[in-house]
């Protein structure tokens, strides 16, 4: 139950402790690799720190604006085709760290967002709009168009399947 885990906060702290233990273990086996990993972590962390501010802001706005009633209407069981379209476009347009989006989607899930639409949103993140010119550069226009169309199609399949495989309580 993600809600219980998030509320208690034990899951995240336990995960952090286990990761630190993995570092300690690696430190005993291969100190050089551990130093490299820590250096890399510091480098990534300095890039991610401003993102954490954005995460906080997004969470606050979500809590303030997105009430369960609204979520259920636009992304819940009754959302219909508009909900699917919102998930596809939202996923394609979404930028930033996946962890920020896990947090946001976890919150929306608790407020009634369908698992199908969460799956569609996450899958459509594979279509990286800002990177399309680079993909075209490396692999060609035809390849990029065909691949993106398949990614969007499979996002819908993932939504349908995931909803059937994960039973969701209707609040």
């Amino acid at each position: 139950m993600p809600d219980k885990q998030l509320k208690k906060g034990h899951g995240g702290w336990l995960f952090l402790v286990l990761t630190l233990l993995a570092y300690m273990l690696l430190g005993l086996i291969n100190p050089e690799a551990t130093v490299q990993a820590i250096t890399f972590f510091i480098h990534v962390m300095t890039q991610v720190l401003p993102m954490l501010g954005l995460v906080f802001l997004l969470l606050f706005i979500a809590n303030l604006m997105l009430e369960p009633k609204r979520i259920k209407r636009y992304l819940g069981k009754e959302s219909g085709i508009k909900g699917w379209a919102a998930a596809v476009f939202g996923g394609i347009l979404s930028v930033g760290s996946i962890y920020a989006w896990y947090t946001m989607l976890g919150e929306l899930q608790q407020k009634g967002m369908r698992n199908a639409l969460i799956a569609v949103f996450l899958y459509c993140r594979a279509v990286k709009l800002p990177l399309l010119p680079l993909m075209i550069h490396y692999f060609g226009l035809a390849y990029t168009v065909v691949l993106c169309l398949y990614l969007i199609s499979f996002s819908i399949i993932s939504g349908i399947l995931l909803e059937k495989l994960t039973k969701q309580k209707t609040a």
Partner: protein
Amino acid sequence: MQADNHIKDNLRKTIKTFINVVPIIVGMLLLTSLVITVFPEQISAGLFGNGDILDTLLGTSIGSIAVGHPLASYLLGGELLGGGVSLIAVTALVVAWVTVGIVQLPAEALMLGTRFAVYRNIFCFIATVVIAFLTVYTLRFLGLS
């Protein structure tokens, strides 16, 4: 007055959620750094060349455990293509890189539920193989490859 309380309540709720999320994000970044250091990208280059099916499975597997900016997958994919690796295997690598998240799985499970995260990643792994073949065969069928 009521609006003030609404904002204060939501701010308190946000702080509470944020405090619970920070260890997950920091833990994931630590884990990502560890994986990148222990499994450098160069290792993958010499592993291909065992036929489309095995190469595709390998591409999917590497993409599934790979972390980092998707741009890195384009660069690696481009290098592998230049080195003679099939487009199907490279497509699998690029697609798995952005759809399957083995390293991110603990965070996804914590925030969206274990069942959801596990089933989603299994689906994404299988879908990657299918998409890799479909993309390349579609291009060949249309005479664009």
